[in-house]
């Protein structure tokens, strides 16, 4: 028994240590805007200041360039949600098709997907810029949404998910019963793999929300920027104001945190549960 207890203790200690490492900076970030500059340096890092400072930091940030910060939030939300919707409609079925597929070119598509996934963005920037320019999209929201919506990572995620989570007997049984491929997909598979949809949705949304390179190249008016690009610009402007930056970072994080909490039932718990059931 003592050996077992020891094992349990070590296990818990490791899990808790990592929990502190992952969570402490997030808590610090959420608390930072509540403090004055002085308190930020002198008081305990995990103490709570007061809401007055939050309001001040936010007003400082919000007043910048005629509420441009609010428009950045709206823009980022719009780009990320549109890209997520397109990715779900395109990538998840593609991953399924590649997992169950028996057609010539299947391995080629898989390989090419992998190749373009590891293709450095710096190399793709110019060609894609020229393509979008030829389509007269530069500066428009589609110039950001379309590259975001191409999400080979999601195709692979869905591919491996279907490959490992689907019992082949189930598909075979359905086929023997005469169900068409679309019906199998819609009535049998979609319910089973809903958690994988949640995973792809979260990854697309977060990647698009946080992306820096494309918006900074494609969008040229301050009004059209996204939060990460705007924030990086603010870092120079507010370099002496810790709290305004921390408040700005918090603003980019809070929507994602809310999204996580809303989706965690499907993702963190669901990805596990549904596979089992």
């Amino acid at each position: 028994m003592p050996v077992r207890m020891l094992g349990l203790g070590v296990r818990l200690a490791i899990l808790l240590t990592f929990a502190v490492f992952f969570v402490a900076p997030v808590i610090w970030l959420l608390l930072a805007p509540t403090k004055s500059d002085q308190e930020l340096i002198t008081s305990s890092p995990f103490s709570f200041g007061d809401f007055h400072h939050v309001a001040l930091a936010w007003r400082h940030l919000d007043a910048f360039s005629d509420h441009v910060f609010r428009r950045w939030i709206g823009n980022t939300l719009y780009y990320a949600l549109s890209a997520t919707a397109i990715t779900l409609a395109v990538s998840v079925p593609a991953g399924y098709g590649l997992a169950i597929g028996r057609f010539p070119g299947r391995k080629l598509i898989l390989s090419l997907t992998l190749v373009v996934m590891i293709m450095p963005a710096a190399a793709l920037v110019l060609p894609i810029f020229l393509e979008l320019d030829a389509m007269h999209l530069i500066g428009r929201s589609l110039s950001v949404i379309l590259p975001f919506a191409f999400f080979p990572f999601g195709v692979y995620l869905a591919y491996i998910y279907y490959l490992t989570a689907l019992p082949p007997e189930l598909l075979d049984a359905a086929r023997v019963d005469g169900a068409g491929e679309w019906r199998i997909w819609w009535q049998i598979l979609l319910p089973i793999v809903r958690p994988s949809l949640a995973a792809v949705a979260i990854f697309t949304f977060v990647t698009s929300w946080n992306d820096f390179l494309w918006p900074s190249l494609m969008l040229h008016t301050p009004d059209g920027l996204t939060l990460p690009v705007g924030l990086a610009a603010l870092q120079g402007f507010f370099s002496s104001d810790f709290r305004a930056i921390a408040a700005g970072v918090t603003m980019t994080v809070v929507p994602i945190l809310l999204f996580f909490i809303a989706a965690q039932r499907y993702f963190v718990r669901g990805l596990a549960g549904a596979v089992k059931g």
Partner: protein
Amino acid sequence: VSSSAAIPHHVEATRKRGLHVPRGLPFVLPYLPFLIVFGIAPTVYALDLAVTDVGGGWVGYDNFVRTFHDFRFGPAFKHVLLYTAVWLAALMLFVVVLALLLHGRASRASSTFRFLYYLPGALAGSAAVLVWLFMLDPTVSPGSFFLHHVLGANIFAQSIAPGNLPYIFAMIAFWTGAGGWIVVMYGALNTIPPDLEEAARIDGASPLQIAVRLKLPLIRKWIAYMLILSFATGTQLFVEPEIVQHASFGLVPDTWSANQLAYQLAFRYADFNAAAAIAVDLLAIGLIGALVIVTRTGLFRTDD
């Protein structure tokens, strides 16, 4: 292309009788335009740029030789490879260990831990770097004790000394990305039939033996996928050094990583051919890595 021998006969028969369209293909079709426009075509164009000059004339591997002899080339690739090695080692070790530790815990505690680990994923990209700039600044950091005694840093500039950067970036990347992979691995572990684990336990296998001999081989595909992707994204490091460079008052060069060097060559010197050559170098490194991992783990096989 695929091994039809492994398909049970009755399925084969059904397929031949009932279907005109190759199975699976219709699902893939909507994806193809995206793959071509945003993946294949730009890649081909970049490959073309790498072997031509400004006028479009063929120059062979001249661009590669030229960039290889650039004084920034060596350090940039060294930084990136060191960073990637540290990050991958951390990912492979800790993600697998933490997922295995979480698997088999009481489900509520386990789901809380997974959520906490995943939380920093909300801060990927520039937000994460900004947070860690605070964390590495001894004047405001909650870990100033650690910075002071382990890194010996009393001021911000010492924390982000060039020698520390590969490790710092590896830590930031681990901090933001590991939780997502832990969730994915945990999900993969749950696809293992409980009876299999039960049988091993009855045979007298210890939890450690079950983890190493039974669970680990079964999540091989996921580990492979994680490594391929992380290897590739690791060598493409861009945003983190870019932001640290802005914050470092010239201490960190704007060509610290290979991808930054390519970016600078393209957009400051308008030398797209040299930039493309470096991108192709990175692609080659990523491909070699991916090829080794794919062939060693059978990632593309559909029947196992």
